């Protein structure tokens, strides 16, 4: 979809599964989408957006695809179309959702399932490094949990 100034980088990056690089090209494409999100920092704008979402979105020169992704709250699609998670956070905060809730939606799991995965130590990197299998383990276990731990150590 995008080309980066330095050959190779984007290809390599695209090899990481389930991850989108917010690079210069995507940022350029997502500029108005992200600036729409930024506008929701103001309470009066949030109220206006909530009253009529489609009409509010008309104020920003976005693509039709971007508008649809916002109206459907298709978070992965918004990211693919140039949205950045920290900007999108203004939108999901307006919806009353947390970072963890939206992370769950993006992974296709329920919030409860996602929270449990995090409590068990999060998503393991094993099997999640690379689409082509270059990053060691080829296992496809997308939700193999690592282990939970907590430790504080006084040193020296």
């Amino acid at each position, binding site marked *: 979809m995008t080309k980066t100034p330095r050959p190779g*980088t984007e290809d*390599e*990056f695209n090899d*990481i*599964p*389930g*991850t*989108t*690089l*917010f*690079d*210069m090209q995507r*940022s350029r494409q997502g500029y108005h989408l*992200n*600036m729409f*999100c*930024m506008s*929701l*920092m103001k309470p009066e704008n949030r109220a206006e957006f909530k009253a009529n979402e489609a009409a509010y979105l008309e104020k920003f020169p976005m693509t039709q695809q971007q508008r649809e992704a916002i109206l459907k709250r298709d978070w*992965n699609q918004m*990211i693919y179309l140039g949205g*950045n*998670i*920290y*900007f999108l*956070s*203004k939108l999901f*905060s*307006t919806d009353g959702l*947390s*970072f*963890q809730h939206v*992370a*769950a939606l*993006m*992974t*296709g799991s329920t919030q409860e399932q*996602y929270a449990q*995965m*995090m*409590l068990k*130590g*999060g*998503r*393991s*990197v094993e099997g*999640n*490094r690379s689409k082509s299998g270059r990053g060691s383990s080829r296992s496809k276990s*997308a939700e193999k949990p*690592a*282990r*939970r*731990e*907590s*430790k*504080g*150590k*006084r*040193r*020296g």
Partner: protein
Amino acid sequence: MAKIVASVNVSHVPAIGAAIDLGKTQQPYWAPVFKGFTFSKKWIADLKPDVIILVYNDHASAFSLEIIPTFALGCAAVFPPADEGWGPRPVPVAKGHPELASHIAQSVILDEFDLTIVNKMDVDHGLTVPLSLMFGQPKEWPCKIIPLPVNVVQYPPPTGNRCFNLGKAIRRAVESYHEDLRIVIFGTGGMSHQLQGPRAGLINRKFDTNFLDKLVKDPVELTKIPFLEYVREAGSEAIELVMWLIARGALDAKVREVYRFYHVPTSNTALGHIILENETKPRALGAKKPRAVAKKKARVVGRRRAA
């Protein structure tokens, strides 16, 4: 002269700020997180820094996509907490040190680090959460704070090597300042986490542990980690860890690890925290306590924790 005596590296997860502000710190989910900072609070209260140089990243609060500075330095007298969409955090206004900040800006730019000078800026959870973890909920932060926001949101962020060398330039700047000041530098963000896409929730304890170990003993090795490796191994938002290298670059090559804490999960994130001190004891600078006494006291604290 002014001197950077120690670094505090710590994650700045926004949910930590919410837990503090909403009085949830004793809840089972949060209690272990805050317990991990008992030592750190005492350590910094004893050290009494005059100034904190706080390296963090803004999360679409002060900077939108209109202006994206790679490195910026807050030279203002005050930095109010940002409204991140649900009202500003109920924390004190951060008071700057405009004279020292201006000196640093001038010095590092002449040293070929062309950072952006910021004279008006709200500061978000990236800056306020580390302060809350280290100082709790005081009416005023007990020292001056110089914010140093780094772009790690928009690719490409600065390289680890660039960050490490900026730390060295900051140290040179600080050491050429006329006033005797005890300074602690904070490197914040990380550790492993990914907030976006189907791979969200990634945690890599092995990567994090290695990063902490090398930060102490071989930070130069860490400066060679390319952007892609941070993303692949530790998640798209783990790139924040390059900011820890600014703090590390500002310290001696040899440092003493004073304290370490690691906890999973904190919302979507692996929380990491490490305190490093220069081998040359901070008390030597405008000291109120003789060196030996300070050392002995620290050891007692250590034994108590271990028991």
